């Protein structure tokens, strides 16, 4: 049996080694060296990590990213659940809603950036016009609060449909009998949601939270196109920060930041996954 499993997993393992493992080892290697273009890399142990952890720029980028990711989860997950609950369950409108929800997900990231640039650009956009009407001088390019807030709203706009689709899938798998039973027991809407719907959505919500958390760390093209990371560094999120360092060929530094990045995301995901799985086990035995 075991041999067969290995055989079946072989393509996955070969491709993943090529496109994941080898590059990862290279990155680890970078993080342990001082690298300047034109000269031989010099082994420096953990010196890069020390430099990164002491760098106020890194602290800023990390704080900004964590605030952003927390906000993304806090808004997109509840909103996604609510919209999924409101969607029609059957019939033509259900298919139409699904297709419509899928569309924002299929817009290339940089086109999302362009859409929002057209939308928020101070000379041609809709948002500045509307807010200007109410007397608020909105400017995505120059205002250090408008800029990150716009990126945040963009992300909610772009990615809530994914959470909706996942939750919708979860809702579809709950048999009607459960709701009928809850109704007979005289459960309130909230109680039905809390004790029937929510536990059944657990596995899709785990996936939703994990995907949104991981991917919120990856936000790159949108701030790059919309604000270029500015004004100042107010929209330089983590990926943009790393790639700026990599582009300026500070590979040792960028490598260390990447390893720290990966560490944070994996630890969060692992802990979250464990906690949620245990809660699930507790709930099922009841």
């Amino acid at each position, binding site marked *: 049996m*075991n041999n*067969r*499993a290995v055989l079946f*997993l072989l*393509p*996955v393992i070969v491709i*993943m080694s090529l*496109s*994941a493992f080898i*590059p*990862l080892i*290279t*990155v680890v290697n*970078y993080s342990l060296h001082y690298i300047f273009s034109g000269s031989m890399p010099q082994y420096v142990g953990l010196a890069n990590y020390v430099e990164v952890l002491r760098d106020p720029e890194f602290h800023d980028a990390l704080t900004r990213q964590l605030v952003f990711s927390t906000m993304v989860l806090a808004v997109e997950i509840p909103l996604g659940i609510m919209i999924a609950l*409101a969607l029609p369950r059957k019939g033509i409108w259900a*298919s139409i*809603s*699904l*297709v*419509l*929800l*899928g*569309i*924002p*997900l*299929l*817009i*290339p*990231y940089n*086109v999302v950036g*362009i*859409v929002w640039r*057209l*939308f928020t650009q101070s*000379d*041609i956009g*809709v948002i500045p016009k509307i807010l200007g009407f109410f007397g608020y001088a909105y400017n995505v390019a120059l205002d250090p609060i408008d800029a990150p807030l716009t990126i945040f709203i963009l992300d909610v*706009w772009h990615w809530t449909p994914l959470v909706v*689709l*996942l939750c919708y*899938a979860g809702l*579809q*798998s709950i048999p009607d009998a459960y709701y009928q039973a809850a109704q007979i027991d005289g459960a309130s809407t909230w109680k039905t949601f809390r004790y029937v719907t929510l536990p059944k959505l657990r*596995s*899709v919500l785990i*996936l939703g939270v994990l995907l949104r958390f*991981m991917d919120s760390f990856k936000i*790159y*093209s949108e701030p790059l*196109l919309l604000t270029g990371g500015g004004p100042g560094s107010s929209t330089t999120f*983590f990926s943009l920060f790393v*790639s700026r360092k*990599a582009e300026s060929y500070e*590979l040792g530094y*960028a490598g260390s930041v990447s390893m720290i*990045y*990966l560490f944070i*995301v*994996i630890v969060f*995901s692992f802990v979250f996954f464990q906690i949620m799985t245990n809660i699930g086990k507790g709930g099922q035995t009841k």
Partner: protein
Amino acid sequence: MRKRHIALICYFVILFIPIYWMINTSFKSDAEILREFTMFPKEITLKNYVEIFTSPVWRNSFINSIIYVTMNVVITLIAAIPGAYAFSRWKFRGSHHLFFWLLTNRMAPGAIFIVPFTELYYTLHLYDTHLAVALAHCLFNIPLAVWILEGFMSGIPKEIDETAFIDGYSFPRFFGKIFFPLVAPGIGVAAFFAFTFSWVELLIAKSLTITDAKPVVVTLTVGIGAEGVKWGLLAAAGVLTIIPGALVVYFVRNYMAKGFALGRV
């Protein structure tokens, strides 16, 4: 009930205003875009679209994108289907760790992988080919596809496999005749996600190509900044990049509803 529908309609309206704005802009002339603010183009012009369709750069980059996205979906499925089958059917030592390791790859920062990827594909003489981009995108697509498919396959009882083997089915015949149709919705969902990601990804696609395999997302970015931004042209190109995606969603819509409902996703 009423309130629910109104809220839902409001949500969809908000969802589509930015997209509408792009479509609106794509039919305007540059002069109109900059001169005045109109909710509907005063005179509809197809100039922007004509410019895209007559330019070989745009045309080629569209074709490039379609080629490597298709390759990526095929490679992803070829690798992920047997892999997911193994995970769903056999629990072997370390299978949990291997599964989690696969997932961690999806978390990896694309940004830092650029330099190692570039070095790797140069060494393999694959740099600036469609295959390079397709393989690189597997980094994110295979883990997700394995996860989705494993969910679907675990939902299919093992007894089905066993019965088929007792009935004298060979493995390939069992897979093709019995198992494949059962997991088809899952494969549809996995293919949808692989397509989506590969189609929208910019960073890696940009760094692995120069001219021969340059994707449309990169051509789009180049348009910004050079000689004043041509908003109308960019908007038209943006609209065109949404169309393949919209077609894919349209075709898999039933699978999506069914697939999402069946799988553990």
